[in-house]
């Protein structure tokens, strides 16, 4: 992933690793191997910057609490996995396998939200401006028009039974784009490349829209950052 957010994250973790407390901890552990921990990326805009589409209160809770919990839990379970991998006893392998869904969920939550923050932008920074270039052409070829695409995307969002995400994805083999929904925090990996994702968990809209989720799905297009989406397309 060549996103600004994750570059920022790398810089931040480097800074943290250099901080006295971190090096002290590494020293105490008596090891020279220090894995880079996942960190909560800064938002590229203020919490209130996506209003009125998404309230500042939602953005703050969503980023500082929800996303941060995924980061913390992911780090915790990866550490447990590393410990479990030190042995190949039956118990250790059971533990490794039991950790897989937890890493999928929390690691997925971390990367989904990191990509989501980046594929949104305040209108003052280009949010809602229609795509241009290659992304515009593939959307028009596949869906007829941007409006027709949004309508299909919103139908997919509305059809999610429970918590999940809808993504515009690109097939890594054929290059074709499509709309896919993912349950819970299942990440877009493998055959598909994430281009644009919308969070359909209730925490993403409930404080502002309550059960009127169709209104949230309609409003979010005002703050979609199509430039970022375009950069993800190959």
């Amino acid at each position, binding site marked *: 992933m060549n996103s600004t957010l994750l570059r920022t994250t790398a810089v931040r973790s480097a800074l943290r690793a250099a901080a006295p407390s971190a090096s002290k901890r590494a020293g105490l552990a008596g090891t020279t191997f220090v894995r880079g921990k996942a960190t909560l990326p800064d938002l590229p805009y203020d919490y209130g910057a996506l209003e009125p589409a998404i309230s500042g209160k939602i953005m703050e809770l969503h980023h500082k609490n929800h996303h941060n919990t995924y980061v913390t839990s992911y780090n915790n379970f990866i550490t447990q996995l590393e410990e479990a991998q030190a042995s190949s006893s039956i118990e250790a392998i059971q533990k490794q396998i039991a950790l897989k869904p937890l890493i999928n969920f929390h690691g997925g939550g971390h990367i989904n939200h990191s990509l989501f923050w980046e594929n949104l932008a305040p209108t003052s920074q280009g949010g809602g401006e229609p795509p241009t270039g290659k992304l515009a052409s593939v959307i028009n070829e596949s869906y007829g028009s941007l409006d027709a695409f949004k309508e299909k995307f919103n139908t997919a969002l509305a059809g999610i*039974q*429970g*918590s999940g995400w809808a993504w515009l994805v690109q097939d890594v083999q054929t290059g074709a784009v499509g709309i896919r929904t993912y349950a*819970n925090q299942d990440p877009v990996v493998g055959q598909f490349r994430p281009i644009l994702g919308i969070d359909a*968990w209730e925490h993403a809209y409930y404080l502002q829209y309550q*059960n009127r989720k169709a209104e949230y799905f309609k409003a979010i297009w005002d703050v979609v950052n199509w430039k970022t989406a375009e950069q993800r397309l190959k």
Partner: protein
Amino acid sequence: MELHHGKHHQTYITNLNAALKTQAEAVHTSDITTQVSLQAAIKFNAGGHINHSLFWQNLAPASSAEAKGSAAPQLVKQIKETWGDEEKFREAFKAALLGIQGSGWGWLVKVEIGNEQRLSIVTTKDQDPVVGKGEVPIFGVDMWEHAYYLQYLNGKAAYVENIWNVINWKTAEERFVGTRADAFKILKASI
């Protein structure tokens, strides 16, 4: 509670009735493809209706006599036999609820197979209902974010902690000593 009942639960019922109507037409015209394609919508919306109907009944105001464990002597006895004590049961139930990834429910279920009967903590995803053979739902806790978000925000552990104050043990006892048909009789009344 008002939104949850008036909007969410109502939406499941509205969508269920629409799906059942379409299904009746598809049955009438022997359109098997349509019948099969409706299954997911029926399961989801019927599940939402069943789960919420059972949920409202297994809650009670904290100050009421129904909200005391003493209203469920036989159930509490078997809980103690199964988990050791009530505290261990609550811990196990809480861990199950907090382990749900995404939307779902946690249930205390009585499972009856032949002459054998046991209690079990079960979690289900989205609106999947507890309707398996021999399964009697005793009480359920809604772990969708809409159930707690306006009050607890992301603090779902506090929601789970406080839900114990409003469990209707009288209803739970009735479902525990009764049959599967007894537990679901509210649904017959409401359709």
